C-alpha cells in the first residue's frame, strides 16, 4: 500500500496511456472493420459446423438435452441448416454487410476525431458514485426513523423497528435509486448520440450543441426513458425476489428459463427502442414515444443491416452492462 501511495503518479499515467491505446484500437477497428465482421461470420459458421460434426462423431450427446441418436442427429442437422442459412444470408446481404461496415468505420472515425467525448461517461460515473454515497446515507437516515428498541445480546449499535410506512418509504427510495441510475446512463446515451448525429450533419461543435440541446429542450424525454427502464428493472427485481430462481432439484424449470428469456428480450427491445428514440429526438425534436416508434419501424424496415449492426454492438462489450452490474442491477443478459 505504501508503494502504491508513493507511486500514485504511475497509476495516474495509466489513464492517458489507456486512452491512447483505446484510440489505437479505434483506428484498428476503422481499418479492419470488414475483416472483423467477416471473421465473426466465419467463426459462427465454423462453430455451427464443428458442433454438428462433433455431435455426429461423439458417441454420447454432450448437451444431454436430446435423448438417443435420433435427437443428436436432429440437433446436428439443425446446426448444419443454420450454417447453410448464414452462408445464404451472407450471399444475399453482402451489400448490407458492406453498409454496416461503412457505418462502423464512420463511428470509429467520429470517436477518433472527438476522443474527449469519452470523458462524459467518466464524469457521469463519478456523479453516480457521489449519488450512491448520498443514497446510502439517506437510507440510513430512513432506517433511523424507526422506533428504537433494545434486546439482550444485541450488537453494540442502535436497533430500530421498521414500521409499515418506513417500508413504503424504502420501496419509493429503491424506485428513486433505479430511476436516477437509469437517468444518468440515458443522459450519456442521449448526449453521445446527439454529438454523433451533429457530427454526421457536419456541425461545427457537435458535442456542445448536443449538450445544450439536451439541457434546454430534451431533458424530460431522458427522464421519461429513465423511468421506463427503471420500471422494467423493478418488474424484473420483483420477479426475481418472488419467484425462486432454483427449482427443487437445483436446476431452473422450463418456464423459469422462458420467463428469464422473455425478460431479457423485453429489456433488449426497450433498450433498442430508447436508443433509437433518442437519435430521432436529436434529429427531429419529436416526443419520446413517437420517436421510438419511428426508430423501431425504420430498423424493422431494414432487417439485414440492423442485424449486422446489432451483432457488432453485441460483440463489442459496453459499459452500460458493466455499469449496471457494478451498481447492483445486472442486465438480464
Amino acid at each position, binding site marked *: 500500500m505504501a*508503494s502504491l501511495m508513493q507511486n500514485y503518479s504511475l497509476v495516474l499515467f*495509466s489513464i492517458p496511456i489507456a486512452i491512447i491505446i483505446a484510440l489505437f484500437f479505434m483506428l484498428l477497428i476503422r481499418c479492419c472493420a470488414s475483416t472483423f465482421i467477416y471473421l465473426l461470420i466465419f467463426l459462427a459458421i465454423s462453430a455451427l459446423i464443428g458442433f454438428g460434426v462433433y455431435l455426429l462423431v461423439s458417441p454420447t450427446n454432450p448437451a444431454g438435452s436430446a435423448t438417443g441418436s435420433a435427437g443428436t442427429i436432429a440437433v446436428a442437422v439443425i446446426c448444419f441448416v443454420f450454417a447453410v442459412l448464414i452462408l445464404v444470408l451472407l450471399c444475399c446481404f453482402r451489400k448490407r454487410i458492406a453498409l454496416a461496415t461503412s457505418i462502423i468505420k464512420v463511428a470509429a472515425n467520429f470517436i477518433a476525431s472527438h476522443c474527449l467525448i469519452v470523458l462524459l461517461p467518466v464524469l457521469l460515473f463519478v456523479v453516480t458514485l457521489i449519488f450512491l454515497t448520498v443514497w446510502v446515507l439517506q437510507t440510513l437516515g430512513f432506517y433511523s426513523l424507526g422506533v428504537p428498541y433494545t434486546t439482550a445480546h444485541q450488537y453494540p449499535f442502535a436497533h430500530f423497528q421498521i414500521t409499515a410506512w418506513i417500508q413504503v418509504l424504502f420501496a419509493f427510495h429503491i424506485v428513486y435509486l433505479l430511476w436516477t441510475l437509469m437517468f444518468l446512463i440515458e443522459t450519456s446515451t442521449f448526449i453521445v448520440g446527439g454529438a454523433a448525429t451533429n457530427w454526421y450533419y457536419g456541425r461545427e461543435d457537435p458535442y456542445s450543441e448536443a449538450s445544450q440541446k439536451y439541457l434546454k429542450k430534451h431533458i424530460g424525454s431522458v427522464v421519461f426513458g429513465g423511468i421506463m427502464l427503471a420500471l422494467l428493472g423493478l418488474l424484473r427485481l420483483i420477479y426475481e425476489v418472488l419467484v425462486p430462481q432454483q427449482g427443487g432439484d437445483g436446476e431452473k424449470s422450463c418456464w423459469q428459463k422462458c420467463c428469464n428469456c422473455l425478460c431479457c428480450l423485453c429489456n433488449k427491445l426497450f433498450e433498442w427502442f430508447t436508443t433509437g428514440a433518442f437519435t430521432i429526438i436529436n434529429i427531429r425534436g419529436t416526443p419520446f414515444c413517437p420517436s421510438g416508434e419511428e426508430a423501431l419501424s425504420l430498423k424493422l424496415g*431494414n432487417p439485414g443491416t440492423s442485424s449486422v449492426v446489432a451483432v457488432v*454492438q453485441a460483440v463489442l462489450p*459496453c*459499459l452500460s452492462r*458493466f455499469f449496471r452490474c457494478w451498481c447492483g442491477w445486472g442486465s438480464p443478459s
Partner: protein
Amino acid sequence: LLVRLGITFLTMLVVYILAKTVPYYSNTVQDATLIMLVTGFAAFTISCFFISVYSDSIEAIYMTYLVDKERGDSCRECPGELRDFLDEVDKQENEGTL
C-alpha cells in the same frame, strides 16, 4: 471482450515497463502487484467507457443514415467514408440498369 482485455493488458504492460525502466520508479517500487491491479482496473474501466461511447455512436449514426435514407437524400450530408460507399452502390446500380 477482446478489445477490453487488449486495452487493459497493453496498458498494464506499458506501466510495468515504466515501473522497471524509469530510475525513480525502479528505485521506489518494491512490489508492483497492487499498482498493476489498480492500473488494470483503471484501464479496464476506460476501455469500457470507450466501447460504450463507440456502441452508442454506431447506433446513432446508423439511425441518422436510416432517417436520411427515408427522406431520400442519404448521400448529401453524410460523412466521407459512408458517402464513398453509397456513391459506389449508386454506380453499381446504374451500371446494372444500363
